[in-house]
């Protein structure tokens, strides 16, 4: 499972703090977080609800600005791009892939069009063919199916293929198995790990599902906005 990682991290968070809300309702979903993910590395993030896992993804994905600290994605300091939403969106489009809960596919688009849309948004070639990517996730035979005609696992596979359209350097995966049974969960995360390693993409997967973290190169745990423990996937799996 382990792959050779380049020395420069794909993602680097240094002393990152995020505060949300005002007054008494103020919360700190990320509290002085230091975190690095190497290229080609598949990292799992576990932790209880409200621990700050989604905020970690949001900050890493240029969806949420850190109140303090430094965030670098593929060597680019995000504070130097923002706060222009347009420029941040462009950066995300070219460098960051997202896999959401339940795939979060667009209901009006069939599997192939899900990928074509991202290709269009990113200004990709008009000759773009989505079939090889769909084939890589075992979904080429359902290229013309709408999301409503796919199972949860199939939707997630299409979502994974969609995330790779722009060949991102960083892949952020949000609870990919939340709507899947155990067997399908294993398949999906195995597929994610395989694709991430094959493509040399740094991947961060937020999950509640401890059964799937055996596929990760490394697992970190978040509690109260802090990355409290660093353990290997083997060690976590042994718990």
């Amino acid at each position, binding site marked *: 499972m382990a792959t050779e990682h380049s020395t420069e991290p794909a993602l680097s968070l240094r002393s990152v703090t995020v505060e949300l809300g005002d007054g008494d309702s103020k919360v700190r979903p990320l509290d002085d977080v230091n975190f690095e993910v190497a290229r080609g590395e598949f990292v799992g993030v576990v932790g209880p*609800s*409200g621990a700050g*896992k*989604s*905020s970690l*993804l*949001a900050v890493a*994905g240029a*969806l*949420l600005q850190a109140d303090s600290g430094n965030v670098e994605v593929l060597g680019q300091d995000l504070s130097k791009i923002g706060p222009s*939403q*347009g420029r941040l*969106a*462009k*950066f*995300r*489009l*070219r460098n*960051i892939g*997202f896999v*959401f*809960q339940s795939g*979060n596919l*667009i*209901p*009006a*688009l069939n599997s192939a*069009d899900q990928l*074509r*849309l*991202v290709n*269009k*948004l*990113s200004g990709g070639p008009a000759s773009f063919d989505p079939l090889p990517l769909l084939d890589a996730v075992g979904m080429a035979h359902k290229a013309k199916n*709408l999301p409503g005609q796919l199972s949860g696992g199939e939707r997630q596979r299409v979502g994974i293929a*969609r995330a790779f359209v722009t060949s991102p350097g960083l892949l952020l995966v*949000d*609870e990919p198995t*939340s709507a899947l049974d155990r067997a399908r969960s294993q398949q999906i995360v195995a597929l994610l790990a395989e694709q991430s390693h094959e493509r040399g993409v740094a991947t961060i997967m*937020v999950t509640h599902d401890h059964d799937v973290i055996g596929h990760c190169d490394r697992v970190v745990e978040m509690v109260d906005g802090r990355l409290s423990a660093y353990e290997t996937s083997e060690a976590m799996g042994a718990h």
Partner: protein
Amino acid sequence: MFLAIRELKFARGRFGLMGAVVSLIAILMVMLSGLSSGLVNDGVSGLKSLPVTAFAFDEGTKTDNAFSRSVIDAEQVDAWKSQPGVNHAEPVGAGMTNATTDDGTQIDLSLFGITPDSFLTPAVSEGEQLSGLAGIVVSETAKSDGLELGTIITLDRLDTELKVVGFTEGQATFGHVDMAYLNLDTWRLIASGAAQPGTPTQTQVDALDFDVASVVALQAEDGEEIDMLAGDLAAGTTTVDLKESFNSSPGYEAETLTLSMIQMFLYGICALVVGAFFTVWTIQRQHELAVLRAVGASGRYLLRDSLTQAAILLFSFTALGVMAGVGLGSAMPDGMPFALELEPILTSSIITIVLGLVGAAVAVLRITRIDPNTALGGQR
């Protein structure tokens, strides 16, 4: 367009319902437009067809019913004739009358007394031009009352007899009444009350000391403009251009204002309905849009996409509605003042589409406020 077209196909039920509403609005708009044009034609088609630049009324004449209220004399006509830029200045006598045809049918006529062979002589579709004292050229639409060439019309109370010698080309009505062009001398006999029973004669005309008329019809020289202020000062008149003179037709202003107000409401309703639909549509898609924004779609792309949807919806269903409206309009009964004219239908269609787009634009602006962060599960 990529996403817009696919979403239109995917949500065809919802868009179809909305489109049906837009089509119904377009049908109503065509009907109102047709009714409006029909009423305008019924009210002032006789004036519209005149080769007149402006009408000069006696100074201070009240606008409403000004044609029958105004009285001008020969000096005022002469004063206008000598104005620079005026090609023609002719007196016109106007007034309504009741009459009976030789088969006993009671009719109303709007009498327009003009000088035969003047620039005001109407083009005829049937019969001959105005000549003599008893001849009248009547609106073509009067045929529906049974009028034919040679029909003798007897004016009520005076028992003066006039003969139909021609029909105008197309409709020529004033104040919703068919127009009858007649010799100005005959009009003067009738207006003065000096007309005798039977056919008007030259002897009666010669004996009449009544050289007034209702208004001065003015025609500008080619490429020239009439200096109305200077002319009014010289002639003691109040001059309005042809279009403005329509307001002097009985009931014209009240009718057009009423219909215009209904049309304005219709435009407002269209903008609100389309805006409400796209508000709900945008709210329904909020999570999808957040996902797209998270992936990297710009707010501008999503706005353009939603507006394209609105434009396709409005264009296609307005066109359908207009076609249905035109079909319905052409089946309107003859007695109904209804006229399908390209320009007002086109204008109101464009206004409907533009205001619908404005409504949609206001609604979909919320796209720019969608936080891409909400695409992540924990932030929902």
